[in-house]
């Protein structure tokens, strides 16, 4: 999936990770990662990294050490027909350097397991619970992987593409069933 042309950014110069010490550290920790960067209109930078699943934990730890110390977001996307089916997307911020980093990691549908990053960012706790609750992605090493938004006794993971809207009948009090 290519990035659409963006009104808020300028054309980035040809990229080499060697120009950027922070991204170089990422590339060293995750050799399989595809890293890119572009400039935001006001001088900040937007970095992106697509990492293989087995290098995900190391990449996040390296990002923290490189200066991306603020955890902003973790979410999952279900691409359904694509392989790998799921993608985990995390957003980190390096406030002092005015950079944002988006790390994406693919997670196959048959084996929806990824490393938990709660050891690096304590704030990933609720976000990983949400991704488990809504997408059924298992985070190994998470201290308390329970439902967070859905009721505790809920079956299934509603934000998956094969869980359709309206598949669970709503129980209206005292309603008669149609014959």
């Amino acid at each position: 999936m290519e990035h659409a042309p963006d009104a808020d950014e300028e054309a980035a110069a040809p990229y080499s990770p060697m120009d950027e010490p922070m991204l170089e550290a990422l590339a060293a920790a995750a050799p399989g990662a595809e890293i890119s960067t572009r400039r935001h209109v006001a001088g900040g930078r937007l970095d992106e990294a697509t990492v293989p699943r087995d290098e995900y934990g190391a990449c996040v730890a390296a990002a923290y050490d490189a200066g991306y110390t603020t955890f902003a977001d973790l979410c999952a996307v279900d691409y359904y027909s694509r392989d790998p089916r799921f993608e985990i997307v995390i957003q980190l911020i390096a406030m002092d350097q005015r950079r944002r980093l988006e790390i994406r990691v693919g997670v196959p549908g048959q084996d929806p397991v990824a490393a938990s990053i709660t050891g690096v960012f304590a704030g990933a706790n609720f976000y990983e619970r949400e991704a488990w609750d809504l997408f059924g992605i298992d985070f190994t090493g998470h201290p308390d992987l329970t439902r967070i938004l859905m009721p505790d006794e809920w079956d299934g993971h509603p934000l998956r593409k094969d869980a359709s809207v309206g598949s669970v009948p709503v129980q209206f009090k005292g309603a008669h069933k149609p014959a």
Partner: protein
Amino acid sequence: MSDTPHNVEGDLHALAVDPPEESAGPAPDAQSRRQVHDMWVAGTEEQAWIAEATDEGAQELLPRDIDPALAVQRGVVVSDDYEVAEQVVEDERQIINMGPQHPSTHGVLRLQLEIESETIRRVKPIIGYLHTGMEKTAETLTYTQGATNVTRMDYLSPFHNELCFSLAVEQLLGIEIPPRAQAIRVLMTELNRVSSHLLWVATQGMDMGAVSMMLYGWRERELVLQFFEAVTGLRMNHNYVRPGGVAADLPDGWEDQVESLLDVVPKGLGEYEELLSENPIFLDRAVGVGVILPEECRAYGVTGPIARASGIDWDLRKAFPYSGIDQYDFDVPVEQNGDVYDRYLVRMEETKQSLRIVRQVLETMPAGDYRTVDRKVTPPPRKRIDESMEALIHHFKLFTEGFKVPEGRVYQAVESPRGELGMYLVSSGGPRPWRLHARTPSFAAVQALPVMMTDSLVADIVATLASTDPVLGDVDR
């Protein structure tokens, strides 16, 4: 999904006529709370049964040594630590629930508290009571309808939600927004910050016993809401900022209304400061209470006024500006102590700075279109529909099918009154989003509540919770 417990099993009507066999006699579980209590006191009941009857439910506090909130706190000095005498024994700890129905939780938030006499030892926020699946709903709505959905997430700053969604869609579309539309967006979002902070100071006062503060805060906020109503037709959930621009131009005489707001609201702010800033009761309950350190803010993703009160100089309007907000002069207030009082100072100053931006927008409002002229996104004017078949087709297509957005993904963040509001939008090239994730500031703030509340007094919980300004619609979505 047919085996889910939410299914209606059997015919309810028939059930009422012919009760099943087992409901005739008293079921073993049907004993009253009073009986459970008596058995507990007498010690006659098996422990297992009592444990079941007094169960906390599926959500439980974690074992003490693996609670990540405490792991972060370990080794750092927290100035709101309440020094409790050492002789309090383990047996005096009890777990109580605050909420989900509690007037000071600003919605339906449940806090599982482990208390030791008057001290909070551990806290677990339990959320989801207001979850309505808005991210799933967003996948079924076109981009034209999407703003109607997202505006209901954070109902105290609806313009920011709409703006964030619209900016994300516009980035994928790659369209330019006319300067007047951008200025209107800045005007409305900054006034929204004012109304949100006014509501916050009102409820913060009310939660800490200053009920008159609530009345004053509501008084000035009402004026801002009246302006919103004049512009959008609604007091909340406006659906005014839309992909491509805004829904309508500002009404005639809007300058006078904004002028009167700029006159009245600062006077109100002066009154609040007179009421609260040096009020000894307020100081006692706010200074040194609910402290969060800058490192903890970073680890937990806490942004906005809470982070700025802890000494983090970070505002997305300065760092990653959007909608042309970088052309206006304003300061970002930063305080150092990270307690309830500093959050109060930061929000009061932010309100003034937002009014300063509004003043500049009022003076420099450019003329021109209030939405893009791109016919793929913007419906044709009503007059054209009578004259042109093409216009009619365009209009019909836009409101039945919606417009298609090129394949791609984007993360767009704006500075909402509560912090970083981000939306991650994935488009598969169709007229509906493939995925819309909202990164909401309240979600991160509620997650960090254990950090602020652990080892503080029961009485400080309400003050701390109010100072994080959570909107539960924003947390649960």
